[in-house]
């Protein structure tokens, strides 16, 4: 309604505002996408064993390592506190040593995320171990039946 634009009708002002909002949201979306892509490495919660071989790690750098606990790899040390196991992403494996309480869901074949440092001997010394669970929810009987009939799909991540 400003005096400088007496020709502007309400309809064109509404359309102009609509375009401004759409353009603003598009720019914002592009900006967000660029930022998130640039920070990709900082947003991922953990590295997989394959990532570890590609990354250049500083000695003693604190990272999170995630994957599946390899079947048959869990060993309790003689001191009764330290647990040794192997984390795998089904192509690479990393041995892990951890002295502390494990979450209830921790078991062989389960997804875990461990925080710690990779030692010079290639053993990952964890200061914390978290359990992951998959997105499947079902009663125990159904899970047993699926396993019996061979239709059980192991997690791939």
């Amino acid at each position: 309604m400003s005096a400088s634009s007496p020709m502007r009708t309400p309809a064109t002002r509404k359309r102009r505002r609509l375009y401004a909002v759409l353009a603003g949201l598009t720019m914002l979306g592009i900006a967000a996408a660029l930022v998130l892509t640039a920070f990709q490495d900082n947003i991922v919660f953990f590295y997989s064993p394959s990532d570890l071989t590609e990354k250049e790690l500083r000695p003693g750098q604190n990272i999170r390592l995630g994957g599946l606990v390899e079947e048959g790899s869990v060993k309790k040390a003689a001191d009764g506190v330290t647990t040794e196991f192997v984390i795998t992403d089904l192509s690479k494996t990393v041995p892990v040593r951890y002295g502390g309480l494990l979450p209830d869901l921790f078991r062989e074949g389960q997804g875990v995320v461990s925080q710690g440092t990779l030692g010079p001997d290639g053993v990952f010394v964890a200061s914390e171990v978290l359990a992951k669970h998959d997105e499947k929810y079902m009663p125990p009987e159904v899970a047993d039946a699926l396993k019996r009939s061979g239709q059980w799909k192991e997690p791939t991540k």
Partner: protein
Amino acid sequence: MHRFANPNQFLRIANPVLPWVAWLAALSIGTGLYLGLIQAPQDYQQGETVRIMYVHVPAAWMALFVYASMAIASATALIWRHPLGFLAAKASAPIGACFTVICLATGSLWGKPMWGTWWEWDARMTSVLILLFLYIGYMALVDAFDEPTRGQRAASILALVGAVNVPIIKFSVDWWNTLHQPASVVRLDGPAIHPSMLWPLLIMAVGFTAFYFAVLIVRLRSEIAAAKIRNIRIGQVHG
């Protein structure tokens, strides 16, 4: 849409709808809680702890749904100067913030026994925390100006800007590896959740949605009444 632009027109429809959505909310939340907490089976991995899902997941859905509604309402207010658009967004913000708090609190309670931690800075949890800050920021900004229309415009723009966070929350578990597991229900190859657990979840979701609309109508009614009172007072001062 402009038929509802008149607040009186809106109230003529909303007032009779209110008892229906209120009863729908009470019945489905009651049924959903009974089915989820007592009837539903335990999970093969998580045991009884899985029952937190029946509150956590609908709250998370509503946190996103209310924010999306708020952003759309703010857009109608900014573009078409829809008089109810801004009021609907303003009335929604505290409801959405409550759903977000419920989602974060139940998620934390669930994370401790299952993952072994109350909180981790993974992409899903961090983006939901940002959602809560957006809600709080909106509520703070709306009333931060002496002139109401300036606060309305600033808060509406904030609501629109924050909308980029909604797809980030939804897809965070797919774009990055996270501690939080990927989606179980809304996914391309169908729900990965047994029907005996899916039904209570969906009934809870219906209940939470009805609850949102019931509270929204009540809050909108009071916002409309407050606007009328303000206009009368202004009229008295200038008259």
